[in-house]
């Protein structure tokens, strides 16, 4: 057997371009996390240790609420984005039918209560929801609607026109719940000014630690939410269970930093897209307004699985449409909803983290170009082909 000089992937430096899966921890978040971890008290305890923990918790609540312009009592801490979405869909939807975007994250697509009446909202080819389709669905029944649409898509970065959507929803008395997990911290957003009713976010997608998220409610008075579990009545009886203070404090610090020191990543993203298109890639959702850090790159005829492995073996971390927890690469329901067929299994998502370096992008482009130019065997290993 002939030995090659190629080093093992473990020895190569990792280039991390998968921020939409999780952002690298921000130093400010790490400091806040560690500081909170040093506190012994339970925020619900009445003694001094408890009061110290509660003070830190409420400071975090003020910060998160302020970032999205809601009143602090309408910031409900959860374990993360999935719980925040599911809490809204269960706790705010009584008597309503569901209108759910076809490109939503699985947290939402699979988040409604059992037996719910669900209508799926189609998207345009560019990935934005069809406003005409939404209006038609709102108009289709006298039962008030609970509309679930995301601010930014996790795979394509495409932004739905949320303000227009909110106006439409208000006209029909619908509740608009927005999954803001990918947008929070990446674009400035006011829950109040935009007219949405509820908004979910996740700490680790903004550079905080994993384990915290929040559901934000519009309105001046504390909103009522039926809890998923009552527990000790924390979060105004809307979410039971002792709050994970270190993760929450870290989330608040990450959000603060992200919004105070925004970094426009679009020049780097554009470099990647320009280079990828030059070797045959197609950018999905390119025509729509998008997040500045996200590219969905389809390489026609090349399975995402193969692309992912090739890049990973070169030390580059990106992701395919959606990987299930077993790690197998499935077809992207997002791209399918946008009208892509076989190509929905041929896309990679490149999402730039807040601390991406110019040379990371250069290296990615080099490896991607090499991959695109190499012939592939035309695999049949896939769910839909």
């Amino acid at each position, binding site marked *: *057997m*002939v*030995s*090659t000089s*190629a*080093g*093992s*992937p*473990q020895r190569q430096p990792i280039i991390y371009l998968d921020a939409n899966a999780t952002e690298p921890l921000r130093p400010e978040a790490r400091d806040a996390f560690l500081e909170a971890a040093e506190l012994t008290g339970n925020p619900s305890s009445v003694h001094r240790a408890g009061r110290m923990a509660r003070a830190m918790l409420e400071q975090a609540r003020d910060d998160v609420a302020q970032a999205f312009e809601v009143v602090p009592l309408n910031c409900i801490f959860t374990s993360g984005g999935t719980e925040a979405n599911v809490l809204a869909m269960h706790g705010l939807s009584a008597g309503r039918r569901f209108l759910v975007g076809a490109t939503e994250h699985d947290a939402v697509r699979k988040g409604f209560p059992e037996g719910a009446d669900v209508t799926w909202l189609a998207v345009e080819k560019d990935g934005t929801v069809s406003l005409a389709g939404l209006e038609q669905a709102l108009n289709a029944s006298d039962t008030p609607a609970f509309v679930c649409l995301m601010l930014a898509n996790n795979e394509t970065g495409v932004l739905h026109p949320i303000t227009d959507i909110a106006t439409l929803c208000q006209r029909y008395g619908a509740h608009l719940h927005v999954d803001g997990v990918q947008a929070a911290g990446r674009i400035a957003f006011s829950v109040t000014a935009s007219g949405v009713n509820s908004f979910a976010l996740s700490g680790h997608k903004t550079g905080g630690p994993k384990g915290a998220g929040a559901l934000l409610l519009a309105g001046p008075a504390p909103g009522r939410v039926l809890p998923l579990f009552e527990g000790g009545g924390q979060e105004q009886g809307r979410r039971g269970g002792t709050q994970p203070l270190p993760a929450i404090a870290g989330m608040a610090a990450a959000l603060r930093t992200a919004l105070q020191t925004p970094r426009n990543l679009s020049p780097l993203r554009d470099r990647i897209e320009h280079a990828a298109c030059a070797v045959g890639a197609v950018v999905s959702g390119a025509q729509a307004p998008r997040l500045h850090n996200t590219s969905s790159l389809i390489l026609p005829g090349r399975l995402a*699985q*193969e692309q*992912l*492995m*090739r890049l*990973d*073996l070169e030390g580059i971390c990106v992701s395919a449409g959606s990987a*299930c*927890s*077993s*790690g*197998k*690469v*499935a077809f992207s329901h997002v791209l399918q909803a946008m009208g892509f067929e076989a190509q929905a299994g041929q896309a990679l998502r490149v999402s730039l983290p807040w601390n991406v370096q110019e040379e990371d992008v250069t290296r990615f482009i080099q490896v991607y170009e090499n991959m695109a130019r*190499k012939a*592939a*065997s*035309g*695999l*049949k*290993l*896939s*769910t*839909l082909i």
Partner: protein
Amino acid sequence: MRILVAMSGGVDSSVVAARLQAEGHEVVGATLQLYDARSAAKKGACCAGQDIRDARAVADRLGFAHYVIDAEKRFQDSVIGRFADAYAAGETPVPCVACNQGVKFTDLLGLARDIGAEAMATGHYVRRVEGPHGAELHRPVDSARDQSWFLFATTRDQLDFLRFPLGDMPDKAAVRAEAERYGLVVAGKPDSQDLCFVNDGSYVDLVERMRPEMAGPGEIVDSQGKIVGEHDGVMRFTVGQSKRLGNAAWLDGQRQMVVGVEPGKRRVIIGPRAHSYVESLLVRDVNWLVDAPPEGIECAVQMRAREVPRAARIRPVPQGALVQLEEPAMPAPGQACVFYQGTRILGGGFICRTETESAA
């Protein structure tokens, strides 16, 4: 070199990965998700079973990359579907051959080439020997674990790329001992049994679910079409078998055996054992691992997974190959007929159905 190791999560392929890495190769592990181990539990749910967990644990411990490859649809179509189709055609299929041939040595091997691997290794018990005219496929040292019969359809091009590091192992105990030396969690894991995709009930239940029209009792008839008994489902019968025939096992003082299966009529045809053997048979889809000898070749053939090879003469014909047996035998349609010379596989094919039909 970069080598892709097909890892099932069992001890054999784990040892292969560990050994290749210890030899200094860049190992890339891949586990095929062939079927949802919990299909009954929840449709469409994620499905990482224990075997995937085990394969990953080995990769994580040794520190090499590991991927789960979704081949469920492919496996369903190319292996399970064809398995049921074969029964519906009155044959007794060998799904492991179809799996090795398609999902593993075509698809996964293609992926291995795509990611820049220079070889693909598996935990099969078979030996690959570099011969004067290229790679040869041989029986393994451990005859108790011989998987060569299941690998006859490996093409020469595939064989060139493949590696089977366990072919030289003396026995399973040695493999387990090696697994322990590498500290692998799977060192004591029991061997998989029977067909991997049949996890509850039997293959009969599976095929009956897929082809309900074949399920249920039917007639046992003799070669004249006379009803001589009843059976509990055609899938339970393979040409050559004498079990499960009940009172029809002996007729007119002669031991009977299955000579044909007609799934469409749910019929099992029997005949006297002594008179039903054949001296020649046709095999189709022949794969040659040597240059096909136009004038024919003397060798040994093995027509079931576990049996002693018998002397035969093989002659290539347009439909495949004609096998002339030295002594009569009862080959089962759909099974493999593999040609050996000593320990070496020369080639093989699938046994064609002979024209045994009930008169009626």
